[in-house]
């Protein structure tokens, strides 16, 4: 187990190096630089442009800039935002709870609906429920996030008036200092009546939009995994004991069927954080994704590099945790 852990962690190192290089190159491939982005169409005197570039170190050879950046990362320094002049890490830390809250709720939505839907579809395979579920799943998977988000806003917020259009909280009626950064928790801690339901109503649409693709993937994966497991001899043994169908399916079959599903859930963190960028932009959700989009517009190199590095590190970390969970739920690996 310990050796497995060490080997698995060591495998992430080359990924980090590649990641550092790709983010560095990618942000510089976008035409223009931070100075031009800020001056825009007004233009700027060539001497002043040169001076500002010198200040930011943009006039130095690219490989030197990369070494500086890589050296900083190794020492835990993600640089300082060109626009806000605050360290990238602290900006990220401020914004990340909003993204995490959205992502977790999206994932919870996907798991809570996806696994039962997949299980029922597998048990009642070929039924109307099965076909309906799988059609919905395929539609959800194929739906572009931004379009799906806009549709929901138009229907739920504009037409039915059930939910707010954007943001995390009704800031006109409520105000409280962030404690955890999670609006659901903070609104409860604030003891202000209606604050929590405001937080929920703000969160619900973005969470659904973000969770739709993972929901489709989890439901389909659970279904196919379940179908395979339901044909296994040990499921027959469980039924031969006279156990209830709920126990046979929900315990004996599902426990085995979940092994590949957990892996897929881990892989969905990438989709979720990537989707968060779009979702946050549509719903004006003040998280990391929206911040990254704004940083692209400003060509804020350190913010982009650092932000992408941090987000991707989280994806890598989650996948590491998933691999370890996989070991925990599968005794054949644990004792192998």
């Amino acid at each position, binding site marked *: 187990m310990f050796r497995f852990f060490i080997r698995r962690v060591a495998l992430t190192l080359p990924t980090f190096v590649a990641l550092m290089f790709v983010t560095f190159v990618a942000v510089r491939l976008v035409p223009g630089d931070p100075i031009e982005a800020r001056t825009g169409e007004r233009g700027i005197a060539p001497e002043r442009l040169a001076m500002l570039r010198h200040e930011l170190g943009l006039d130095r050879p690219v490989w030197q800039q990369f070494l500086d950046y890589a050296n900083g990362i190794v020492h835990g320094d993600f640089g300082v935002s060109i626009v806000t002049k605050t360290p990238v890490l602290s900006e990220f830390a401020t914004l990340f709870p909003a993204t995490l809250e959205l992502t977790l709720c999206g994932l919870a939505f996907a798991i809570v609906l996806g696994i039962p839907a997949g299980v029922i579809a597998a048990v009642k395979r070929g039924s109307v429920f099965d076909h309906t579920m799988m059609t919905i799943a395929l539609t959800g998977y194929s739906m572009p996030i931004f379009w799906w988000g806009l549709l929901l806003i138009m229907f739920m917020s504009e037409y039915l008036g059930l939910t707010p259009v954007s943001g995390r909280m009704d800031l006109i009626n409520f105000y409280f200092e962030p404690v955890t950064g999670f609006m659901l928790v903070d609104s409860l801690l604030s003891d202000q009546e209606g604050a929590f339901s405001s937080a929920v109503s703000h969160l619900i649409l973005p969470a659904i939009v973000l969770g739709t693709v993972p929901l489709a993937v989890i439901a389909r994966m659970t279904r196919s995994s379940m179908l395979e497991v339901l044909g*296994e*001899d*040990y499921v*027959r*043994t*469980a*039924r*031969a*004991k*006279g*156990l*209830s*169908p709920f126990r046979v399916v929900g315990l*004996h079959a599902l*426990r*085995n069927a979940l092994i590949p599903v957990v892996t897929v859930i881990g892989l969905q963190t990438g989709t979720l954080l990537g989707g968060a960028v779009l979702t946050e932009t549509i719903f004006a959700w003040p998280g990391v994704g929206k911040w990254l989009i704004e940083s692209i517009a400003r060509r804020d190199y350190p913010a982009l590099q650092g932000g992408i590095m941090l987000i991707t590190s989280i994806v890598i970390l989650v996948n590491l945790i998933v691999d370890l969970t996989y070991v925990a*739920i*599968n*005794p*054949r690996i644990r*004792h*192998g």
Partner: protein
Amino acid sequence: MNATSTPLLSIRNLSVTFATGRGPFRAVDKVDLDVAAGELVAIVGESGSGKSVAMLAVMGLLPWTATVTADRLSFDGKDLLALTPRERRKIIGRDLSMIFQEPMSSLNPCFTVGFQLREAMKAHLDLDKTARQKRAVELLDLVGIPEPERRLKAFPHQLSGGMSQRVMIAMALACNPKLIIADEPTTALDVTIQAQILDLLLRLQKDSGVGLVLITHDMGVVAETAQRVCVHYAGQQVEMQDTRGLFRDPHHPYTSALLAALPERASGRILPSIPGVVPGLADRPAGCLFSPRCRFATQTCRTIPPPRAGADLGYALCHTPLVDGHPRALKKLEMPA
């Protein structure tokens, strides 16, 4: 069919039909069986002869594509076909249990042996946690597993095939059943282990007085163990006799050919075999299903399905059941001497 007035398990005209992509497939065709309390009955037949499917139908473990029909399917005085699934689940696993062919894949890899053993007791018996644990240890001890306390904590992949089958047997015994169905319990095991497991099963059967239906394709095992034998061929029951009678005077040509193929019975230098293969779904003969492979087959056999003979001829499904190795037309029997 049986002399016993109230058999534990009583089956009349059991048929099982599977819905397949190429139309319905009848895997079990009008099978009868009676098992008395404490009796050991063997069902023999080649692979695909429907012997497992018939017993899975009794357990109610067939997939949803199967349709089960029977004139009678009763166990312990209860009509199994009339029970609701909930009522049926109270019987299977408690009074009626089953041991399967593949012990390694029949145990759930995600749970410990102890968990799976205690589970059936929890569902059926009124025992508290410590009593269940105690009984689990006793059961493993009973089936000859050393260090039962430690083995209860083991996961199935840590056990050998023979060990797993012992656990399966312990599981089948957990709730003191009245009847155990053992579906080729030794087929998947090493030859050296086969005898051990069979001996264990027979000893437990004798000690506890539980009824046992032993599904096998090993005639040698049948000769040593069973009181009565049913021979299945292509989903049909072709003969049923007392073991001694069957080995002395088989009435169906298929039984006769099976016995002739036993190495210990072969007299010549070449071991006799039955030519051809069991007919598949598409190539069923019009008359007797065994007629293409039968050395006694006549034109009647090939065109008209055979009638069932009486008890004196082992209920043989044959136009011309054998007596002392020679075919005898059924009609003659009915004529006054």
